[in-house]
């Protein structure tokens, strides 16, 4: 067991536990916190995978902005514990088993497609910031601009939606 194994298994476990907690917790805030936990541990895994910029972005944007919005909304709406209604039998009796099946299938496919010979060597960093910057402003320039426009639209949309009716 090398340090990487420790790190991977520790943060993978944290991520999975956080995700489970997200589902099990009945209060939105707790779910949000556990999701933030998942994101943080994912950021560490990104670092292990050599994607330091993505890791930073993950924290700054996801944990630092998006989730703050979530928490903010939860606070504004003062959302309490969710009530345990079960009006959708389909979700319970069809969805859940099939979701499990789905999970198994995906794992099977992935394991078949990626035998455990392929190792992750932390020294091979490729997600250096300048590489990503070059790619973004070179090859992916158009999508980048488009996402900018998308953001603008979303901004306007959010403002229009959330403003109080005059």
């Amino acid at each position, binding site marked *: 067991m090398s340090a990487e194994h420790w790190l991977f298994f520790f943060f993978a476990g944290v991520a999975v536990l956080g995700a489970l907690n997200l589902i099990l917790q009945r209060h939105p805030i707790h779910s949000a916190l556990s999701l933030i936990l998942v994101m943080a541990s994912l950021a560490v895994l990104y670092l292990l995978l050599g994607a330091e910029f993505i890791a930073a972005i993950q924290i700054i944007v996801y944990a630092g902005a998006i989730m703050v919005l979530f928490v903010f909304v939860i606070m504004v709406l003062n959302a309490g514990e969710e009530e345990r209604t079960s009006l*959708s039998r389909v979700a319970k009796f069809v*969805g859940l088993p099939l979701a499990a*099946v789905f999970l198994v299938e995906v794992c099977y496919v992935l394991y078949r497609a990626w035998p455990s010979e392929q190792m992750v060597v932390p020294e091979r960093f490729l997600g250096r910031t300048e590489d990503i910057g070059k790619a973004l402003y070179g090859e992916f320039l158009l999508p980048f601009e488009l996402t900018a426009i998308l953001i603008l639209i979303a901004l306007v949309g959010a403002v229009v939606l959330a403003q109080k009716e005059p």
Partner: protein
Amino acid sequence: MLDFLWLIPALPLLSACVLGVVGWRLSKRVICTLGVGSVGLSFAASLGMAWAFFQLAPEQIPIRSSYFTWLAAGNFQVEVGFYLDQLSLLMVLVVTGVGWLIHIYSIGYMAHEGGTYRFFAYMNLFTFFMLLLVLAGDYALLFVGWEGVGLCSYLLIGFYFLRDSASDAGKKAFIVNRLGDFGFLLALFLLFRTFGSLDFDTVFGRAAVLPAESFSPGQAGVLTAIALLLLVGAIGKSAQLPLYVWLPDAMEGPTPVSALIHAATMVTAGIYMIARSHILFAHAPLALAAVATIGCLTAFYAATIGLVQTDIKKVLAYSTVSQLGYMFLGLGVGAFTAGIFHLMTHAFFKALLFLAAGSVIHAMNGQQDIGKMGALRRKIPYTYWTFLIATLAIVGAPGFSGFFSKDEILWRTFETGNQVLWLLALVAAALTSFYMFRLVFLVFHGQARYTPETARQIRESPRVMTWPLVALAVLALAGGWVGIPAALGGANRLARFLEPVFASSHALVQAQGQTILHSHEWELALMGLTALLAATGMGVAYAIYILNPELANNLAQTLRRPYQVLVRKYYVDELYFAAVVRPLHWLSERVFWQAVDVRIVDGAVNATASRARDLGRWARRLQSGNARSYAAWVVVGAVVILSYFVFS
């Protein structure tokens, strides 16, 4: 010059489109100018064509001008192309010329009617289709014109569509024509199947080389079948027995319409078509005989009905039917030239008759019952004299146009040894003169049978109406002089003009028919006989309707039964109603509607609908509106797709 052949039909079509689309916002003056001017121009164009045509050397005729390919399906090819030979040239001249006069007349006649733009749009459209019909270079295009004139006739018969009788008559004409067109279509199919084309040249070229088929129905071949089917079409269009019933009712339309369509041009389309396919008929003696027989019977039959009709236009309608019968007779005995000759003259005098009658009706403001007329001679002199000339022409008074054409038909009938037909036609001629003069006397002579205040309103029609009458009168008088037979020292120019077209068939028919006593003396004698009979008919009419008018009623009393039969037109309409219409009604209502439509068709549709509704009722549960359920369905789909990829 002849390159602009297309101009002739194009002009009326153009003005028809203009009038039809924007006519409602044009002033009456513009409408009339457009409607009449277009036909006039196309008449001028056809005159120019004729002039150019006469310059041509015989081997350049006929002229074929193909414009574009209309249909191309496999080896079935239809060229939109025109075919100008002597026959079609004659038809074009008649159609445009007479049509033009009638258009002019219509200006006055329709002056006080509404919807002038509709009227002229239809009339121009009709002219276009008629010209298309006579200029067509193959059967397909001819059929287009054929159907087009049928459509226009329907539209114009039902011109006063607020009158039920008018619209019914329009429908009747349309439906009865369908029966004939059905035969025509079958003929076309058969033609294509036999000759692989509908083009005149191809068809006639291939038909000419075939041997003439035998007379006996047993061995009659495909040509006979084709000819007979064509005959069915002609019967429908030209109102022969047994499909003549629509024509009398067609008199519901405005009188110029009756003159143009139901006297001069459209109803002669059948004759033209038979004449056009003379080669086929010449090769099918049986069909030819059928043509002759039907024509003769129709001539006689319609004449008898004409005897007792009291509606001025109905009388003329029946006389039209009977005259068409004469033309059929002429064609049937192989005297195609004679048939066409009579077609031409008939176009002149019958159009004149109708127009004059129209002018009478116009003067009597709408009154059509000859029983309520009389002594109009002084009041409307133009009308009277023109009507008289036309009458003389139709009864075949010597020197008048009808005389030559009718006598040629009769003579050729006799000559080709169809004595029975000849006799029948002769009697019909006598009857014709009787009912025509009955008409003249009842309308213009004797004492007035209308109230004085009506009398005061009676006026001669305006010039725009009377001048066409005069022009047509001249034609009715002199139109026949182009065909003065050799027997009278004439040089039958028309016959020689048309000879190139019909030469082959004439020869063929001559070869078949045994010609007895072929001499001018006999011809002259027969002419005298017909003239004598015509005079007799006139005399009888004079005796009955002028000398002692009550005699008519006494006759009607004494011969009540046959009189009734004639008045009721042999109960043919009733017969058709009982034999055709009623069963059809029953079939449609009980079987097709209540059984087939309601049970099967609607049943199937409703069943589909209700199955769909049940399905929807079941599938509605998916759309519970519960997002979690939707998510579950999404998962289901994902699992299915993924499993497909995993296990395949």
